[in-house]
């Protein structure tokens, strides 16, 4: 038979707690006290503890009494405790003193539908804040062009270096491999029609118009956008941004503007650089696999790529660069003031940037289709 604590009421309205020899089983700490016989919790005048004389007190005993008292004591009404040794009374007094008036159990947890709704509302607020940030940056551009923006040149140079020269190797590798993969895929199909030379068209148009801007933006989202978010979120948690505001400097002007401008300027350059490597990758595969000469490949590429393809690609690169910087900075500025906040800001910045880049690319595709370019 289970050795358990018994709770019962006396005629005088006291709650008697009869403990077994083995004390409180920790498993009971999570069970409703009604299962142990507690009824009408707020109606007791006192709690009296009965226990075997040989029993020594343990932490589960104290935790059980703290929980019991939390249920039987109404706010502002203390219940007298009888039969407890002074040392345990002292311990319980600490727990009673620390009790907050609002019990956590009373806080209603939202249901799944409500959570979805709340997440959607957060998403809308987030998008609104991002658009507001974009608006603020646009309004600051004339100040920047007039040389009156409150930002450090050293900061801009640092961001430019971070986003350009240090990103070159990874953009080169990704673009080269992307061009090579496209050429392999195209070669297999085009070879069967005897149209192997058209692999240059495939690699050229696909990389210049679509893939290089997207892949470069994704690389920068993972690298530079994440670093923007982490840097600004760290500044947020260290109160460095508050320190800027306290001297009358807008964090958007000082931190966001140089980053958006730097990435907006650099992305088209990185795009051209990436295109070069993508075409090189395509040629490196086409030459041995399709037995195409370098001269023929280059000539076919020149023939295939129109100025409009480059213009669209460069425009996308400019827009993607600004977007990645903006999203990175936005998540940094909105980060909670903690170490965990830095991590979550970084992750959110990368995820949002990738989704944002692909969504914006879809908008470009729709516009290009409508304009027939």
């Amino acid at each position, binding site marked *: 038979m289970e050795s358990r604590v018994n709770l019962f009421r006396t005629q005088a309205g006291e709650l008697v707690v009869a403990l077994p020899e083995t004390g409180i089983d920790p498993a009971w700490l999570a069970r409703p006290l009604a299962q142990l016989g507690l009824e009408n919790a707020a109606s007791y005048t006192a709690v009296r503890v009965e226990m075997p004389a040989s029993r020594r007190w343990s932490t589960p005993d104290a935790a059980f009494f703290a929980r019991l008292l939390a249920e039987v004591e109404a706010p502002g009404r203390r219940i007298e405790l009888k039969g407890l040794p002074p040392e345990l009374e002292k311990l319980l007094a600490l727990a009673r003193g620390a009790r907050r008036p609002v019990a956590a159990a009373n806080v209603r947890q939202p249901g799944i539908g409500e959570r979805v709704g709340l997440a959607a509302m957060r998403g809308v607020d987030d998008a609104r804040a991002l658009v507001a940030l974009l608006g603020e940056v646009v309004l600051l551009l004339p100040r920047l062009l007039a040389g009156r923006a*409150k930002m*450090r040149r050293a900061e801009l140079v640092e961001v430019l270096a971070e986003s350009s020269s240090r990103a070159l190797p990874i953009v080169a590798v990704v673009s080269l491999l992307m061009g090579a993969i496209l050429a392999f895929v195209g070669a297999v199909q085009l070879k069967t029609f005897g149209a192997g030379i058209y692999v240059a068209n495939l690699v050229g148009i696909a990389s210049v118009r679509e893939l290089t801007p997207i892949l470069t933006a994704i690389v920068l989202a993972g690298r530079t956008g994440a670093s923007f978010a982490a840097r600004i979120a760290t*500044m947020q948690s*260290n109160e*460095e941004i*508050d*320190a800027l505001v*306290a*001297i009358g400097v807008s964090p958007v002007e000082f931190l966001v503007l140089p980053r958006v401008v730097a990435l907006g300027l650099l992305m088209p350059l990185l795009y051209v650089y990436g295109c070069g490597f993508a075409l090189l990758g395509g040629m490196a595969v086409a030459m041995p696999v399709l037995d195409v000469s370098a001269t023929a490949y280059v000539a076919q590429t020149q023939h295939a790529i129109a100025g409009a393809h480059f213009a669209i690609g460069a425009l996308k690169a400019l827009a993607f660069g600004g977007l990645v910087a903006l999203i990175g900075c936005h998540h940094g500025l909105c980060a909670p003031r903690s170490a965990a906040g830095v991590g979550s800001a970084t992750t959110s910045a990368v995820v949002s940037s990738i989704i944002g880049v692909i969504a914006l690319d879809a908008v470009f595709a729709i516009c290009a289709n409508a304009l027939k370019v």
Partner: protein
Amino acid sequence: MISIDDLTIGYGPQPVQSAISAQVGKGEIFAVVGDSGSGKSTLLRTMIGLMPPQSGRVVFQGASSFGVLFQNGALWTSMSVLENVMLPMDLQGELPRAARRALARFKLALVGLAGDEERYPASLSGGMRKRAALARALALDPSVLFLDEPSAGLDPLASRRLDELVLSLRDGLGITVVLVTHELESLYRIADRMLFLDGETHRPAALGVPAELARSAESTKVRNFLSRVTP
């Protein structure tokens, strides 16, 4: 100089503190004291405009500018100590660069950091970071200085030195100081008056001279809090 009128502060719908009213005189060192989570730093953030009050207002009369020493210094880590102190002046853009440099060096010398100008915040001790941040707070010659837990994380000697520095700044430059602290030694050493924020009632529990409140505050909680250290 500073008038706090029936201020209610907080982050969400639930106010952290309400009915805060106090006047801070010119050249006074005014301390905000209270238990953890009582809203001391929130009051300071509201006073300097980093967050809006839920109701009420803070009025500065005759104050041209203010400087802030944040709890952990909040030095800009990508800049040297000298650049940190120069930045507020750089952005104001009123003085030639050489003058800004000389002034920044002077402020750093005032806080005992002469010779450390080119060091970066990461290479400084906690006490040095606090002093560098204090030099930055003084960069624009503020008439009011806000200090958020200046002694937090400092050893007793560094804490005493910082207190003496604050007293010297007040006595020498006539700066008004609003100080958030839970260090009683520091409170008795430098504060002229104090406001006690009660974290349980969410209202101020006492306003007055620290040593007098330790003896005769109406609130037992305030007396107990202040009597942990002899004035």
